[in-house]
Every structure is written in C-alpha cells, then in structure tokens.
C-alpha cells in the first residue's frame, strides 16, 4: 500500500487515565493476584508503598485507550476481520499507584509484510503525573492473508 512508510512514527493524541483503587482491585482479583499491596492501602503502606499498587500488567488497562485510536486509524487500514494479537511487550520503570494520572502516547512503530502476513507494530509510552516514565509497550498485530 502506498504511503505506509510515511505512517511510521505517526503519533496520536495523548490519553489520560486516572487510576482508581477499586479498578486496581478489580483487575488484580480477575488475574488472580494475591499480594495484599494490590488490594489494601494499609498493607501497601506497611510494605513501603504510597498507595495501593497496580500489578505490572495493569499497563494494558491504562494504555489501551491510547493505542485503540492508532489501531483504528483508517489511514493505517488494519483489516480487523483478519487480525490477531501476535505479540506484546512491556517495559516497566516507576510503579503505578491508586490516585496516579497516567498519560499515554501511542505511535506507529512499523508496518511490514512477510509472506502472506502483514505486521503492524504500535508503541505506547506512559508517564505519570510527575512526568516519570512508567511503561513502554510494543503491540504487534498480525493480519493474515494481507
């Protein structure tokens, strides 16, 4: 498709997510976390944390709202009927706590073809209210028969 090279590096509106304690608890419960620092503010304080701590993969929750518009961008043109989530990477720095405001910016990192498959790779960079980086995500979608 013409113009794909020019999409690489395209970035999207930052997405702001306010981290609620009950949302962390809900998420932690669903994925089977048992560490009380994800549920109980007293346990979190005793362990030296300033508030209830989000499990690392809560990154998927606060950054999804930034990545979705990139994936749905008609100029990127992914065919969702043929799409699978092929791979995912996260790198973590600062912990995310209940009460934080996380701002995530997504961009197109790469679009490439291999045999009959097409790879769409997006990047997300998330920072907290102090401007400290909390997570970087790499989202790989594979379109079959592309």
């Amino acid at each position, binding site marked *: 498709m013409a113009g794909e090279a020019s999409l690489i590096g395209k970035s999207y509106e930052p997405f702001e997510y306010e981290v609620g304690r009950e949302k962390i608890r*809900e998420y932690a*419960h669903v994925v*089977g976390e048992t560490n009380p620092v994800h549920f109980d503010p007293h346990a979190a304080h005793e362990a030296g944390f300033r508030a209830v701590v989000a*499990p690392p*993969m809560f990154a998927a929750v606060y950054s999804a709202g930034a990545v979705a518009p990139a994936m749905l961008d008609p100029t990127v043109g992914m065919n969702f009927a043929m799409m699978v989530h*092929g791979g995912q990477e996260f790198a973590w720095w600062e912990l995310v706590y209940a009460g934080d405001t996380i701002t995530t910016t997504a961009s197109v990192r790469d679009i490439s073809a291999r045999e009959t498959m097409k790879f769409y790779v997006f990047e997300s960079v998330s920072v907290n209210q102090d401007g400290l980086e909390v997570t970087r995500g790499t989202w790989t979608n594979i379109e079959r028969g592309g």
Partner: protein
Amino acid sequence: MNIRQGEPIPELRVTPDRYLPHRYAGASGDFNPIHIDPEFAKQVGLPSTILHGLYTMGLVARANVAAAGGDPRALRRLSVQFRGMGLPEKEIVVRGTVREVSGSGALIDTEAEQDGNRIVRNAVAELAG
C-alpha cells in the same frame, strides 16, 4: 532473588472459569465479542469464547513476579508471542526456566500451555536482581 541459571521457576496453574473473559472484559475495557459472546465467536470460526491474550500474559507476569519473590517492582520487562487461543474452563500451566543470571538481574524463558497448545510462546521476562 533465589534463582539459578538452568533451573525452573515454580509452575503456575490456573483454570479460568466460564465467565472469566466477561470479568476480564469489565476490568480491562476490552469487550470484543469474541471474548464474551459464544454465538458470535462460533460465527467467526472459533470453538467458543476465547480468553484475552493480555489476560494470559497477566498470568505469565504473575508467575515471574512470584519467582522473583513477589515484589511487583521485580518485573522490568516482559515480551510474549501469542499463538493459538486460550479457552475458558481448561487448565493453563505457566512454566519458566532461568536462562541467565547476572549482577543486574535474571532472564526467564517462559511459556503458557493449555491442553497441549503453547498459547504463549517465546516469552522472556527480565527480573531485577
């Protein structure tokens, strides 16, 4: 961190119940009908509703944090490949082996298997030392 090169990390075994994808949808905001509507899933050629890949990745993350002693700060990086699909009501087993231990931490090769299918492959976790 009590892990040594070449040794396995403790296995994590989880059997997601039938409604787990609904609860994960609520927790994550991903309401793609392939995860919550059995009829829709069948229409698009799936056996039934399937698990969210990022849920299964969450189990892989849990197994690695547990291997590091339970501190959520221990997990510095995790990359996974999703293959096949995870299903509710069948046991998932997360296994890992310590590839390398260095002064700054450890690399753990991990995978998640269900019913003989390796639904998460080539996962690599980087744990802080």
